[in-house]
């Protein structure tokens, strides 16, 4: 199940959209199929990947983590070192370049954590396209640094106030925009989900991660025992796993958001637990957190990027078939992993990716010795400072924010502001 068959991955996938969206999807499919065989397009993409994204990203051995966890050697794929701070740029650049070839001048995108929005905004600035990013109002609040950066790249960030005001609602809003404007607009979906051809297209643009891991491991004689990635919609994981799907001796592990517990509305676990069911939502059939009527259930996670009620159809199919294992990581465990890898390896995981880090910490002793665990650090944690600071240094953070507001209100230069004293250690 390395690619879809007519848009389906076994029982999941499809193109469950209104007829209005059918034409742009069919045209996108045709262009994608054409350009992925076009040498000039692939060369242009390759040069941007090398010079702008900064590929290849390192595969870094984690010696202290390996020693402290007392099991398999741990390697971290530093995908967060890609320009704009996460793997999302791989897909954003790929789709924006494709859109440009298709003659589109305007790009729209949805974003949860803001990483995909940020990547799309940057890709549009790089390629000279106009950009509007839909972002749930709640996510706008919890990911302010990314909002600020998107605006710097010249994108318009449109807060979405409908529904649950998170990622799912941003997708709906982007779909509505696309339905009205597809003649000049391309919708850059950021995850490996939605109607066909998005799951195939996003996987192909993200597969560069897995292909590099394959090459890096071959060059350094690293024998892989297990690969671990976080799974929201699933773009980093499917790209990371993609070249290894047929290599059955390698364990592939997806870490879902366990939120604050197993109860309804407390997490975003679609493959673990008993809350999810088969459903059709946002243009595709997959596993979703739905109530008995089919209404989307609220989700919860400290990580905005994993806070979504569905999962990409290929991952769902591979999970049901037993090829990919899923595990659920609590908010608390993700925070512990952020701290663990920051202190011991000098690597700051994004909260999303820290779910993979936490899963690897649990897995370390299960993998036969001599075989490596590869963690995909899909993004780095700079953007999470507003979420991690209140947890790790609440007092100093509160004091900083209050003094900063005071400074802004009184229009003072930073050098003239109140002395905070010795508390900001």
């Amino acid at each position, binding site marked *: 199940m390395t690619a879809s068959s007519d848009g389906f991955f076994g029982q999941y996938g*499809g*193109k*469950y*959209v*209104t*007829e*209005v969206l*059918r*034409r742009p999807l*069919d045209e996108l499919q045709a262009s994608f199929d054409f350009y992925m065989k076009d040498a000039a397009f692939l060369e242009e993409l390759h040069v941007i990947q090398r010079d702008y994204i900064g590929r290849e990203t390192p595969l870094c051995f984690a010696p202290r983590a390996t020693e402290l966890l007392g099991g398999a050697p741990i390697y971290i794929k530093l995908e967060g070192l890609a320009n704009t701070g996460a793997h999302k740029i791989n897909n954003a650049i790929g789709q924006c370049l494709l859109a440009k070839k298709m003659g589109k001048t305007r790009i729209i995108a949805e974003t949860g954590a803001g990483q995909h929005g940020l990547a799309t905004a940057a890709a549009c600035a790089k390629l000279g396209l106009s950009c509007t990013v839909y972002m749930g109002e709640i996510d706008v609040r919890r990911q302010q640094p990314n909002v600020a950066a998107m605006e710097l790249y010249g994108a318009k960030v449109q807060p979405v106030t*409908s*529904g649950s005001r998170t990622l*799912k*609602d941003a997708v*709906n809003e982007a*779909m*509505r925009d696309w*339905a*009205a*404007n*597809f003649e000049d607009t391309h919708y850059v979906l950021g995850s490996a989900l939605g109607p066909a051809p998005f799951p195939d297209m996003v996987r192909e643009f993200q597969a560069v991660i897995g292909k590099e891991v394959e090459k890096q491991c071959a060059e350094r004689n690293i024998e892989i025992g297990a690969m671990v990635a976080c799974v929201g919609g699933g773009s980093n994981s499917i790209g990371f796993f993609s070249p290894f799907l047929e290599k059955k001796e390698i364990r592939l592990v997806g870490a879902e958001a366990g939120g604050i517990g197993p109860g309804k509305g407390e997490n975003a676990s679609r493959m673990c637990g008993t809350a999810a*069911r*088969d*459903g*059709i*939502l*946002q*243009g595709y*059939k997959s596993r979703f957190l*739905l109530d*008995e*009527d*089919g*209404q*989307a259930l609220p989700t919860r996670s400290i990580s905005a990027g994993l806070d979504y009620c569905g999962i990409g159809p290929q991952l769902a199919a591979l999970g049901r078939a037993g090829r990919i294992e899923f595990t659920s990581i609590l908010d608390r465990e993700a925070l512990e992993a952020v701290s663990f890898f920051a202190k011991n390896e000098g690597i700051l995981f994004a909260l999303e990716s820290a779910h993979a880090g936490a899963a690897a910490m649990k897995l370390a002793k299960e993998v036969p010795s001599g075989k490596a665990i590869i963690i995909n650090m899909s993004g780095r944690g700079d953007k999470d400072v507003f979420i991690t600071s209140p947890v790790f240094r609440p007092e100093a953070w509160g004091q900083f924010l209050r003094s900063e507001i005071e400074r802004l209100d009184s229009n003072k230069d930073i050098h003239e502001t109140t002395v905070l004293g010795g508390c900001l250690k």
Partner: protein
Amino acid sequence: MTEKIKLMSHLVAGYPTDDLAFRAAQALVSGGTSILEIQLPFSDPSADGPLIQTACTQVLARGYKVADGLAFISKIRKEFPHVTIYLMSYGSLIYTPGVANFCKKAAAAGVNGMIIPDLPFDHDEGLTENCRKNGMVNIPVAAPSMAEKRLDKLANAGFPYIYAALRTGITGRQTAISGSTLSFLEKVKSGGSKVYGGFGIYNGEQARSLASAVEAVVAGSVFVKIIAQNQNNPELMEKELTEKARELSNS
């Protein structure tokens, strides 16, 4: 033209309350509505604009279930035995409980047909078949942007009725009825299906220019807007709904 126009009027089940929604249905029927299109509120109505979206969110916030929506339809069926009732919603609400199961319940509530725009006519999870088994029709939705070949396939797929969305985009914005609208309608009808035409119908002039090309004119957001604006004044809401329905149905 002085002839009465067949009008399909849309309303959201349970919006803003069960009682007011029922009074709205009564007002629409007394204004000359022949067909009621009743939307079951869904959490992610991606083909709808802000008006209908907000209405759905508001109803769901009360803990409204599909069973409540079907009970609402049953009540309307009893009150108006001769009005045609179509149920409009999204695939998730049909697929999750099982398409066969859902269709059985809908038919029992008095539904005559289903409009589910995100279940494609050529991949409908058994909707058409289960509608037929239960004495209902599946009414697929066509759009003017459809590729020639696909529109041809739909027009010749043997559906008794097709709902033609008169422009691209989402519900709620006004649509100009132009020559290209009429030629689109001709194509939709080319296989012998009867056509309902709507999306952005706000006034009698639009309805009259459309009337001869369709089986019925469909209006939705215009009514939802009246209901939203007059939630606190039910008498005025009823009056305005009836007047608007009269204007659109030319009666």
